[in-house]
């Protein structure tokens, strides 16, 4: 299947017999007199999943989803309806519900449909979409991972590995006359190992992926000192190494202390501490701890934080958002000063601010909301080793599980899955997983050193908001925070 976004329009025309005239008339029906804006979101998605456990690829599945979402906006009011049948009659019926929010009035307003345009970007055109790679190759990959993990250490007793990929075609037609389509490939490989030593059992997980071709997993990992190592080998080694390491982990400390975050995935700090709080919906409603703080200092001057949906082949990247707006690189915080919110069309219009290309939705069954893409902090000047050496007593955390934030109070958590005690500049024993908690508007003011080693995560992030999941990326250089509360059990 093609990954050329210019072919999205043709795809829907051929598959469902839609024409510009039918889009035009539906949008006209939704629009009516009191509606400011309307759009149609067509989606066709094929997903597949392969999973291995106990050395067997037991689960093989494939899913097909298709549908259309119809949205009408009048000031801050949204009407939304969707159907999994893409037919003109279903479109009209959905249009009737969507425009319920307009209190009265019948009749249609003509909508001139402009010519179909391709998105501004072309970030993930592939010669071959992962979904088109023969299933046998995916089974072989999982089998190789199983053998590799078991060979890493005899204490690795259980290996679970999964490969998921999807192929999504979307077409967005708006009452402004724009029609934009995109084709989005996405894949992800995950490895989980359980290590056993007597009654001590520990887990390690790692994975990666993106909007890339299947070959991505067989390319060099580029990890220092591991010449010739392929990405899937790196993921496997990491999962196994973490599981073995955790066998010797001691209780994590409890209380407030210095924290240094390693590069890459620990960028989940930014996602939770400030990213969600800067989504425009919360700021329009003034329910965010960052409301009315544009132009104010919210971080130390070492912090410049970006949301960028235009990095080629990244998991969080998209050519256009799910309202057809081209994605962009948005400076959220520049040298500590809050510069921008992340916008979708509804909120940008109400707040009289520019679109940023962050209006995303999980599927046709969901209405768009401001969401992050790839969120990261720019590199600083410190040598990462020097940052560790500067620590008196604290926690050095290099890998994390998930996180969560209370937008209104600003309190956020994220849970370390690999962390070490540091005493007098020396990395000590690994500690058990612990949750770190902080206050979004304060935590980045406590950033005292930023490393020169910015890294993006390997491509496994999924963000949940209001019941909708979208793929995202994060990134961070080694970063020192003068104090954070660490939720361990040891005093």
């Amino acid at each position, binding site marked *: 299947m093609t990954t050329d976004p210019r072919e999205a329009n043709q795809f829907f025309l051929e598959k469902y017999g839609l024409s510009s005239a039918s889009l035009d008339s539906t949008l006209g029906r939704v629009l009516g007199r009191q509606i400011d804006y309307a759009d149609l979101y067509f989606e066709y998605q094929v997903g597949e999943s392969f999973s291995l456990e106990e050395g067997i690829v037991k689960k*093989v599945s494939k899913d097909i989803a298709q549908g259309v979402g119809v949205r009408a906006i009048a000031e801050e*009011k949204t009407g939304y309806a969707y*159907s999994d049948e893409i037919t003109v009659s279903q479109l009209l019926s959905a249009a009737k519900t969507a425009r319920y929010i307009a209190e009265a009035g019948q009749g249609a307003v003509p909508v001139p449909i402009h010519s179909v345009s391709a998105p501004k970007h072309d970030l993930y055109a592939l010669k071959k979409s992962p979904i088109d790679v023969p299933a046998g190759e995916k089974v072989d990959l999982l089998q190789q991972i199983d053998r590799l993990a078991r060979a890493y250490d005899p204490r690795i007793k259980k290996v679970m590995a999964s490969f998921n990929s999807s192929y999504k075609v979307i077409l967005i037609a708006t009452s402004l006359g724009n029609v934009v389509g995109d084709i989005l490939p996405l894949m992800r490989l995950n490895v989980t190992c359980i290590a056993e030593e007597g009654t001590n059992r520990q887990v390690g997980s790692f994975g990666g992926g993106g909007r890339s071709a299947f070959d991505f997993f067989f390319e060099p990992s580029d990890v220092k000192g591991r010449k010739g190592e392929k990405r899937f080998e790196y993921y496997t080694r990491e999962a196994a190494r973490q599981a073995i390491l955790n066998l010797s982990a001691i209780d994590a400390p409890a209380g407030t202390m210095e924290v240094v975050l390693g590069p890459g995935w620990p960028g989940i700090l930014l996602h939770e501490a400030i990213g969600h709080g800067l989504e425009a919906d919360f700021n329009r409603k003034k329910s965010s701890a960052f409301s009315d703080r544009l132009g104010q200092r919210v971080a130390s001057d070492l912090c410049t934080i970006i949301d960028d949906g235009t990095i080629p082949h990244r998991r969080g990247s998209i050519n256009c958002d799910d309202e057809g707006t081209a994605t962009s690189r948005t400076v959220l915080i520049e040298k500590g000063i809050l510069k921008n919110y992340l916008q979708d069309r509804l909120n940008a219009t109400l707040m009289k601010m520019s679109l940023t290309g962050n209006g995303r939705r999980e599927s046709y069954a969901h209405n768009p909301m401001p969401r992050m893409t790839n969120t990261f902090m720019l590199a600083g000047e410190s040598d990462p080793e020097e940052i560790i050496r500067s620590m008196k007593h604290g926690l050095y955390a290099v890998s994390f599980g998930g996180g969560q934030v209370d*937008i209104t109070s600003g309190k956020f958590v994220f849970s370390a899955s690999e962390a070490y005690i540091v005493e007098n500049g020396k990395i000590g024993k690994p500690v058990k997983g612990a949750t770190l*908690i902080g206050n979004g508007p304060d935590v980045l003011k406590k950033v005292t050193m930023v490393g020169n080693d910015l890294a993006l995560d390997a491509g496994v992030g999924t963000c949940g908001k209001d019941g909708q999941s979208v793929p995202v990326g994060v990134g961070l250089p080694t970063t020192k925070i003068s104090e954070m509360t660490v939720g361990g059990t040891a005093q």
Partner: protein
Amino acid sequence: MQFQVSQAKALLKKAMEKGASGGDILVGEGESFSAQVRLNTVEKVSNASGKRLGLRLFFGKRSAITSTSDLSESSLNQLLIDTCELAMIAEEDFFCGLPSPEAYTTRFPELDTVDTEIDKLSIEEKISFARRAEQAALAEDKRLSNSDGADFSNAYSEKLYVTSNGFEGFFKGSSASLSVASIAKLDGKMQRDYWYSAKRKLSQLESPESVGRTAARRTLRRIGARKVSTAKVPVVFESEIAVSLLGHLASAISGYALYKGASFLLNQLGEKIATSDLTIYDDPTLPLGLGSRPFDGEGLPSCKKTIVEKGILKSYLLDTYSGKKLGLPSTGNAVRGTGGPPSVAPSNFQMLPGNASPEEIIRSVPSGLYVTELIGFGINMITGDYSRGASGIWIEQGELAYPVEELTIAGNLKDIFNQIEIVGNDIDTTKAISAPTLKIAKMMVAGN
């Protein structure tokens, strides 16, 4: 339901003609409505209908599953071809397969899961529930100056499950829910909290005024929250929050977690896993229950089971596959979605309440934490290590003294269940998972 049993049987018959040794079809159809009101303005109205068919086929010990929302004949024929191809790629799994025909249920209990009244409501009437709830919340106190909105939603779904070895089952259920989130502001600092009511039927819902007032009370009591010093103290889980502990227990005794070795409760059947105050039943036959169902995800009968009795683990949660892996029969806890093979979940998973009122429990604490909110995912199911973000109210000399936030609570789930010191009498059995207020003897609370 538009899709007929005869169509499902015909599709399975075609699959058998292509060489499948067995298979099943699950079809789900549903409708949902939701409305959100914020600051007395209707912000969102959403209406939806959807359907999905899942086809699982076995070729001896190989299997694959596919699903689609396109139920046209041509689409289903293609789905059949895809499923056969995928099954050939899957590797042989000795334990896979359908239950034996004699295990299927032939009795389908009437569970009163459908609301016939709710369809009579107009969109305006539904919206008015949300409007009234928000108004009630914001009217409680001037400091409640903002709102995250009030939601009313309702849904109806039907499920048809047909297997190649003789099971046919049909289930329908409805739900309605109302929630409000209010925001209080004082000295430039904001606090938000919410309350909700979710039931099978509209007539069971808490009144909008009651939902609103509770949301307001929960928000107001957070105003002025501060951090406290790190200490090992008694922790009281509000019943709403105690539910999460039961959820972790249910995950740990799921057959899938157990045979994969991914549980902190391996090989504990018949062993003491908690204080003798802990007794839990799983009952899929409760009338009106949100977790009630006439048959499980594989067509096996629904019946009430004792899971934990006075601290002793009496039963795991198993389906046919995970049961076979552990050498045990299914406990009738299979759940199925259209896109995947069965997995395991509790139905109505309910703890037996104790005698103490929440006030009495709080009075027993000289200095400790009353937890009203937990955030984050710091739970390691393999080791039981537990560390989550918490906020709540500090207890001093048996009284709720002042609100606290930006804390973590940590321990190990094995210890937590063995340190349940007092079980409350305040249980809401209309929830799928329900627990009363629980006092844990000691946990590490980290703050300053």
